[in-house]
């Protein structure tokens, strides 16, 4: 090392063991920059998942979680993790005018209930 001088015995050992690592690293292949993370498909469970990207940002992603819930319920024909309004649960969000406030009013739906309808 050029800028640091090991003084005590431990420092000498630190220098010795890291020398090998540095040599290995210097000889290794050039490192590729990490590719950006691109989400595909829905989040797997009812929890904020890909609503935030790896940097914590939300731009360019799906909507925030509470909006996501409604979008999947109402507009999405794809089998989703929430009951769909189109075929099975037309009143599921009837008491939930604003998900941020009223999400407690959304109840669970079981297959039995659906059969009755």
């Amino acid at each position, binding site marked *: *090392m*050029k*800028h*640091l*001088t*090991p*003084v*005590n*015995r*431990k*420092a000498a*050992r*630190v*220098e010795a063991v*890291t020398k090998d*690592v*540095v040599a290995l*690293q*210097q000889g*290794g292949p050039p*490192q590729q*920059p990490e590719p950006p993370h691109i989400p595909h498909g829905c989040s797997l469970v009812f929890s904020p998942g890909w609503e935030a990207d790896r940097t914590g940002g939300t731009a360019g992603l799906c909507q925030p979680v509470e909006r996501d819930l409604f979008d999947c319920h109402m507009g999405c024909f794809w089998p989703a993790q929430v009951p769909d309004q189109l075929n099975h649960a037309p009143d599921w969000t009837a008491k939930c005018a604003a998900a941020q406030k009223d999400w407690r009013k959304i109840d669970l739906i079981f297959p039995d209930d659906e059969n009755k309808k």
Partner: protein
Amino acid sequence: MIASTSLSAGQIGLREFHSFEAAGRRFVYLVPSAAVFALDDCSAAVLESLAHGPRAEDELTRDLAERFDAADVTSTIAELHRVRALGRADGAPASVPKIIPLQPVPLQTLVVNVTNQCNLSCTYCYEYGEDKIVDTENGRQPKFMSEATARDAIEFALRESRDNPRAHITFFGGETLMNFPVLKSTIGYARRRAAEAGKEIDFSLTTNATLLRPDVIEFLAEERVGVTISIDGPEEMQDKFRVFNNGAGSYAMAAPKIKALLARHRSRPIGARVTLTRQTLDVRRIYRHLTDELGFWEVGFAPVTTAPGRDYAISDGGFDHLLSQFRDLAAEYLDAALQNRHHGFSNIRETLQEIHHGHAKAYPCGAGLGLMGVSTDGNVALCHRFAGSDDHTLGTVRDGVSWEQQQAFLETHHVSSKTDCTTCWARPICAGGCYHEAHTRYGETTRPNLHYCEWIRGWTHTCLEIYGELAERNPAFLRQFDDEDVAEKVS
């Protein structure tokens, strides 16, 4: 180089270290590795710049462009990264794994309490005073260790030293010399048994000096027994706390016997061990008296172990005063060391040795590991200060100690379990401090000794400065610390 490439991608931030200056040079003491590196101007400038907050490498290079080449700054960053003085600002510092020994550790030092009786009644005594943890007066333990138990202790020490070629026995008390007959016969027995086992064995003891008769002195000198004398300084200081049962001071009786011992016993260096209290904090005066007037080779100081609020407990202001006195003595030590002269301030010697090796301690001491204490009935405890305490027993000298119990102890006392220590730069050297002190102060051995953190950091900083001075101005002096095998001192 990956090290620098991965850094240059983001912001660079400082990792844990403590900076100090000595002999006009800047140094870092890295935490947790305990490595000491000297810095050149460029590395000092990089660290200084990062002290204001994380920066990207190109920012750093630009800031320092007037003083240093970009290439120099880049290689400096790589070196500092390599020794973990800095890292990516958004990355968590590498955590240190908590490693508990997987198999029993060889015993280095066995402290044998040959008696729990004492002919003095020092008011601050942790064994007899207000903070005692074992009832030595009316407890079930014998007041004196029997010869049979002492022999079992020797067998235990030889057995538990495992592959170590050497075993150390320290006789302790009470007043150790009140059981001189057993001590004497045990040394003979131990030498014989060690020779049969093909091991070296050596002995030391701690005494208050009042029972050093000529025949005792003769024996200790002949047998090369290391002697530590508990003494608090000149007469008026010694007699404040180190008194007989009737309150009379012990200086008048101890001093002539110490002189006789020092005159005859030349086979091992003889040290004084001073207990500092609120009332006796004149460290330099004590040191001068014990070395110049009585002739001790070295003197070690330790603040009294006490629950808070005792009359003799050292206050915060007292610790500041103590630190300035220690610094004065440390400066004397440095002057002597630069001229290759001996100086008997043993506290600094011990700390310099630890800095020199760069030990990063997982535990504050060897208690329950390489060091154990035996009570008069043969129970083995964490150390001599817990000898006889049922709550801190690991086994007996006859049946051995329980490795499971030792492991459980190691699990709960590891420095990583001491939350307060995790942000302290002095933890590689302190690791939370004495278990007995913590037990006395806070009622638990697992607690760090928070009442003297400032003092430990202040003192470690001073020792680092002295170490740096010596490394620059008289590096040959530090070679004496190369030897790892130094008998543990107990107090």
